[in-house]
């Protein structure tokens, strides 16, 4: 086979696939055949590039040209201009929002400039369905190396020394977890991969599994060797069909190459992995609940101790690690603990992947060194707030986290610093909010989620979150009293203290943190019956557009509570205090001057 001169990389992540990227792969291939270029140009379906807000994305190597928002209609032009004639298609390049300059190379974009990709190293670079490409970029070398050269204790030592901590949210030392699982004597031990990504808005684990499934399989085998387990289980939610199918392909190929199965690399180490599908319950991200679900029981947490490292799956020692945590393992083995621990902050080493969402220009998946500030992520990588609006807050840690305000934008991100300002790292969801977002409503959204997802086993979480939700609902409809705030606080503190598992203990966080930082918004809802952001429908008031009003008096005449003032041929004004939001003025106005909330 001839060596290809050009590779066209088409993003095959879920976001881009939903925008027809797979059809583009087929179209590109058939057009290349048609033009006689199929022997020298390769089309590769890759994992997520992370720049989801600009998808579908097509990258051309070796020119390193990065096309964004490509449609099926653009394929002809890419082939005729770029592939055949070497001319970059300018109109498909990314335009920097601040400067409006077209940028062809991804490393020039501020979205990628501050990123440092370890866990996402292969996403967008390789074809996830071809084990050969993973091997080409040093895949399975870490596994081969530990089996040939390291004892399990040495592997644990390296991971411990690297300072890697659990990326699922807790931040527990990965090496220590492995050590604790290695210690107990048992006839069988298990390695579990937690791919039950449940935070609203988080999709980093899905992207890793879709873009680089072998990195997780390899790391699970390394974990198995380190703790003395021959069986691995990937617990993944059934809502991730693409990730599941790529994992299955990857597992088949790894077995075929003898990288999973018996006597791996000619050693006496055996390791096999199976996939268990979860029904997508938030609580199953909690490790004891996850283990019960894998066993076939209800997904309910149990008290710790005993920790899974002593009594986990089928009462055997089990190490449960998150997808992103695993994705860091192979580079740590290959490049060394020192390399990894040189990145990041004192307590938090390495990088973290965040799913950047909400009101930022560049929505997507970003990986930054620990210690990067929120300002850098939101303004440099995220490209600032959409429409140049005012930044209000950023929510991290999903339903277990809290909000961070303008005042703390320069906090370097690590596990401890986020905790100290009332939020948490969590799995890495990061939702940016602007002046139009009502913080009471946001708190209500998260409580709606947790009270719905509560497994119901313990009373504080089952009833407490429900009551909190009801109070928040009352406030957002203008029925709240000052007493409700005291109730919210007390309930929050009680649930934190008494819930059974981590999910319940952190569920009040969105409320407690908004109460602390946005108390005035709660007051506005309760005392003034007003939603400052204009997001709570029940509190929204009709307004008259001064530009459009001609003073015809039609609205004033139909108002049942006579709250519209204004002389004929002069601008009219609605008295918001008296307005009952009946909408009669809106229907009466012939000039579109009444603004509906």
């Amino acid at each position, binding site marked *: 086979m001839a060596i290809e001169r050009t590779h066209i990389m088409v993003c095959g992540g879920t976001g881009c696939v939903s925008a027809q990227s797979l059809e583009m792969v087929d179209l590109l291939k058939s057009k290349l055949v048609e033009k006689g270029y199929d022997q020298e140009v390769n089309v590769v379906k890759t994992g997520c590039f992370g720049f989801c807000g600009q998808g579908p994305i097509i990258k051309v190597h070796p020119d390193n040209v990065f096309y964004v928002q490509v449609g099926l209609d653009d394929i002809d032009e890419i082939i005729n201009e770029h592939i055949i004639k070497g001319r970059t298609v300018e109109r498909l390049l990314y335009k920097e929002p601040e400067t409006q300059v077209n940028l062809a*190379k991804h490393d020039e974009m501020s979205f990628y400039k501050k990123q440092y990709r370890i866990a996402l190293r292969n996403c967008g670079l390789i074809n996830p369905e071809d084990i050969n490409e993973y091997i080409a970029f040093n895949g399975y070398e870490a596994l081969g190396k530990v089996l040939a050269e390291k004892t399990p204790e040495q592997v644990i030592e390296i991971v411990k020394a690297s300072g890697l901590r659990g990326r699922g949210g807790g931040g527990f030392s990965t090496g220590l977890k492995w050590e604790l699982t290695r210690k107990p004597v048992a006839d069988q031990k298990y390695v579990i991969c937690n791919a039950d990504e449940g935070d609203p808005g988080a999709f980093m684990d899905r992207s890793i599994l879709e873009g680089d499934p072998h990195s997780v399989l390899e790391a699970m085998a390394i974990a198995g060797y380190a703790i003395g387990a021959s069986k691995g289980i990937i617990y993944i939610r059934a809502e991730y069909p693409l990730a599941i199918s790529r994992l299955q392909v990857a597992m088949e190929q790894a077995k075929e190459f003898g990288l999973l199965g018996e006597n791996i690399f000619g050693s006496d180490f055996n390791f096999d992995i199976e996939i268990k599908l979860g029904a997508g319950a938030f609580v199953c991200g909690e490790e004891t609940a996850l283990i019960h679900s894998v066993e076939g029981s209800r997904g309910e947490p149990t008290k710790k101790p005993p920790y899974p490292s002593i009594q986990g799956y089928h009462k055997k020692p089990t190490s449960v690690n998150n997808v992103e945590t695993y994705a860091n393992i192979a580079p740590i083995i290959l490049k060394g603990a020192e390399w990894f621990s040189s990145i990041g902050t004192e307590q938090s080493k390495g990088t973290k992947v965040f799913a950047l969402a909400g009101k930022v220009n560049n929505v997507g998946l970003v990986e930054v060194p620990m210690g990067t500030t929120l300002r850098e992520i939101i303004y440099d990588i995220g490209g600032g707030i959409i429409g140049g609006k005012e930044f209000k807050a950023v929510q991290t840690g999903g339903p277990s986290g809290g909000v961070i305000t303008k005042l703390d934008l320069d906090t370097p991100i690590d596990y401890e610093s986020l905790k100290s300002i009332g939020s948490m790292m969590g799995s890495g969801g990061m939702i940016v909010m602007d002046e139009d977002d009502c913080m009471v409503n946001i708190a209500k959204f998260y409580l709606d989620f947790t009270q719905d997802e509560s497994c119901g086993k313990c009373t504080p979480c089952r009833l407490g979150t429900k009551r909190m939700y009801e109070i928040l609902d009352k406030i957002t409809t203008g029925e709240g009293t000052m007493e409700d705030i005291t109730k919210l606080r007390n309930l929050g503190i009680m649930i934190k203290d008494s819930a059974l598992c981590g999910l319940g203990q952190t569920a009040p966080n969105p409320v407690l943190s908004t109460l602390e930082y946005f108390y005035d918004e709660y007051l506005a809802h309760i005392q003034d019956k007003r939603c400052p952001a204009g997001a709570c429908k029940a509190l929204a008031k009709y307004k008259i557009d001064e530009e459009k009003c001609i003073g015809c008096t039609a609205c004033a005449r139909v108002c049942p509570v006579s709250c519209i003032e204004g002389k004929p041929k002069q601008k009219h004004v609605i008295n918001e205090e008296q307005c009952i939001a009946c909408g009669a003025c809106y229907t009466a106005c012939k000039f579109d001057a009444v603004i509906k909330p």
Partner: protein
Amino acid sequence: MPIKSLDELKKIRDNQIKKVKLRESGDSEDQTIEILVGMATCGIAAGSREVLNEFVNIISAESIDHIKVVQVGCMGYCHSEPTVQVNMPGKQPIIYGNVDRATVKDIVEKYIKQGIIIDDHVLIKTFNSAL
């Protein structure tokens, strides 16, 4: 065919890396040698596509590092197509004209490996080139 040792894995990797190497080019920008092949209509008509593919094949066969072959548009030397510009780190870019397969071999063997300029085919030597 199961992999039985680290060496066997490395063998597979060495074979596979040739196929995907060109994707790494973006990383080591400073030290990369760039070969730009003019691929406008006149260039293609004069055979620049064969030239481009010949470069790719030779470089791959000889496993030369830090080099990338990129096709570009018209450089403006239609009288001497196919044209090839070679950018070596720390050196003035050189544009070669009337390049054919034999010249491609010369460019790789003599100029890129040994720094000997192939006088017969030099069109221009300057930083103020078309690119």
